[in-house]
């Protein structure tokens, strides 16, 4: 893998977009992307991810703000001069051309000599393991094969930046995992920069160097996958990435990096998030897999008394549903082994966890 450049390759500077002159679809988007990074824009449908991508590719105008590549603004550069590869959700393979002709298209446009084109097409067909399929039409390929052709076509003219808009959305689960692997492999092998759009968080978590969580036209947090999962910077991210329990409470004391919270089930200690003030309302987020049911051999700092509601057998683990006195649901994931306890309906239980595994966010 290529070393990540230290300086910024692509910069979004307070980019805004409005389609109808009334509402902003993208509200002040800021991001610095280094050379060779795999950046994912992750967010619910309609949050403006495609719009950002289209502005970057030049198919939508920027309402205000600036997009710069290698320090130069590209706001006014025509799409065909941007040298940005693109993979579309529907692949957009040209149906009247063979696979080889599809791959040759960007090279022909660049007036590359014929012999060279042929070699390059063969090389990229091999790269995506489709060497025998050059003479087929896109219509004669399976979904996964089309996806790989689309990838090869976006890479073949060696753009420094490749954009992918939900490229795996149309594939079934197995194929999707296989293609995630494939894309990661090609990214490592060839070292281009990727801006990847998805609403699937597993996809985002497993592929990206950094993920920008998008909501409502604003980036909520942009961080590497582990940090996003372990240290979400606000309640939206905590709830959007993975599963989370939210226990409502009141801040009683703030000590350095930790905070004491008074909840209905007892006092707990949590990590401090931005925007908390002593005496203010808050919610403590804890991942279901970080909670343990008493008795446990795991270390713990916090304990909460809850009532058992129901449990659902999932297979490799069991999901327990508890209720706080105020009615809030708490989910606990327990590995399906001998230690998984049984409860009577409405029985009392104690949930235990480490203070470092929970974060207190201001109540929104």
């Amino acid at each position, binding site marked *: 893998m290529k070393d990540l450049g230290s300086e910024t390759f692509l910069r979004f500077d307070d980019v805004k977009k409005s389609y109808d002159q009334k509402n902003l679809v993208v509200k002040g988007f800021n991001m610095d992307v280094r050379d060779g990074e795999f950046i994912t824009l992750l967010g619910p449908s309609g949050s403006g991810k495609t719009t950002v991508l289209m502005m970057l590719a030049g198919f939508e105008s920027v309402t205000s703000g600036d997009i710069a590549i290698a320090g130069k603004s590209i706001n006014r550069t025509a799409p*065909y001069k941007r040298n940005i*590869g*693109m993979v579309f959700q529907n692949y957009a393979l040209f149906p*009247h051309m063979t696979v080889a002709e599809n791959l040759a*298209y960007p090279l022909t446009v660049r007036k590359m000599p014929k012999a060279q084109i042929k070699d390059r097409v063969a090389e990229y067909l091999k790269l995506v393991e489709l060497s025998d399929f050059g003479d087929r039409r896109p219509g004669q390929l399976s979904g996964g094969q089309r996806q790989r052709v689309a990838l090869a076509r976006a890479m073949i003219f060696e753009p420094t930046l490749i954009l992918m808009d939900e490229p795996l959305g149309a594939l079934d689960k197995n194929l999707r995992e296989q293609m995630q692997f494939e894309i990661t492999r090609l990214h490592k092998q060839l070292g281009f920069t990727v801006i990847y759009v998805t609403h699937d968080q597993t996809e985002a978590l497993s592929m990206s160097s950094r993920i920008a969580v998008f909501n409502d036209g604003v980036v909520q947090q942009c961080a590497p996958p582990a940090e996003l999962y372990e240290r979400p910077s606000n309640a939206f991210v905590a709830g959007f990435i993975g599963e989370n329990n939210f226990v409502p409470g009141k801040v009683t004391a703030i000590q350095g990096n930790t905070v004491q919270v008074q909840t209905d089930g007892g006092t707990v200690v949590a990590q401090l998030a931005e925007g908390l003030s002593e005496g203010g309302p808050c919610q403590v987020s804890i991942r279901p897999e970080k909670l343990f049911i008493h008795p446990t051999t795991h270390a713990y700092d916090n304990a909460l008394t809850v009532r058992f509601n129901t449990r659902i057998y999932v297979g490799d683990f069991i999901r327990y549903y508890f209720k706080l006195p105020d009615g809030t649901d708490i989910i606990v994931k327990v590995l399906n082994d001998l230690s998984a306890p049984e409860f009577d309906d409405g029985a009392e239980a104690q949930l235990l966890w480490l203070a470092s595994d929970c974060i207190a966010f201001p109540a929104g």
Partner: protein
Amino acid sequence: MTDIAPGLIPADARNAAREVRKRKLQAFLFVTPLLVFVIFAFVAPITTMLYRSIHNPTVANLIPDTLVALGDWSGEEIPDDTVLIQFAADMKRMANDRTSGQLADEINRALPGMSSVVKSTARSLRRVDDTEIATNGAALLIEANDRWADPATWSAVKAAGQAYSTSYYLTSVDLERGPDGNIVQRDTQIYVKLYTKTLRMALIITVLTILLGYPLAFYMAHASDSMANFLMVFVLLPFWTSLLVRTTAWIALLQTNGVVNSTLLAIGITDQPLELLYTQFSTILAMTHILLPFMVLPLYAVMRGIDQSYMRAAMSMGSKPLGAWYKIYLPMSLPGLSAGALLVFIISVGYYITPALVGGTDGQMISNIIAFHMQQSNNWELAAALGSLLLVLILVLYWLFDRFVGTDNIKLG
């Protein structure tokens, strides 16, 4: 007994067979109206037309005996007296049956000017005694009109007497059989010119509808739904008004003191009204307007299915918009373009009303002359031959189209 798969007892097989029969019957009932229409309104009339264009038994039925007698005539000089006497007898019979007019029309077609000859001869022979004709018929005939002494006249009679003949097809392409039986050019060259003019006008109309329709369909296909629906109303508007109204509107616009001319005069572009109506120009203009929907609809339907990501993909790969359109969009929209072009071309080749109303003499197309032969000159055989030739022409063009573009490249939506 047919083979029965293991586990399928005869009763099951019978049930399955009954089910299949029922489905077939249903399918047949669904398409019956279409079949009936095709057979009665398409296959039957066209077959009759094709037959009629080569089969004309009128003369053969009127003077069968004369024609038999003419059978071994050399064609060089006046036929034998037996022929003339037989013909005189036939003429007398026809004069009394009042069928001599039919003979006059038919022979006149073979040899112009014969109509009055036949009619006057029939008149003068009507009251002559049968025995007189039997003995002196030949002299009486030549006395009635000396053209009966001309071998050319008899050639015409013999030619007109053939029940099956290709002469109408020859006429359709401005040829005729000379006295010696060779095929020669006719003196008047009408039909080939008319066919070429018809094809040329149809081609111009097709090109014009493409030029006007393609950008419109493109814009509509990629505009918002509400905009597309709004424009679609305008495209379809001509379909909701009568063809006559639309054509007459053009008359109002183009006539000597019509809207266009008065505007041109008012702004001083000309100081004399232009000849706009009753020209090829007005025919092409009106037909382009009338046939535009036939171009826009299939184009729109096909373009609607072309996602904008194709053009975007092409441009992201470095292609300029025009190049991307030419290499990507045009081939993808070709099925609609083919369908539209074929539709407009074929409809305009056979178009009748508009050229008849706004075409004048200059803007007439082949259909107008076919109609003329059916309604005014009563030459149904020639009309049939001209029509058949038109049909063949269109089939050939369709075949060429299939060769070079491919009919599987046609899509109406």
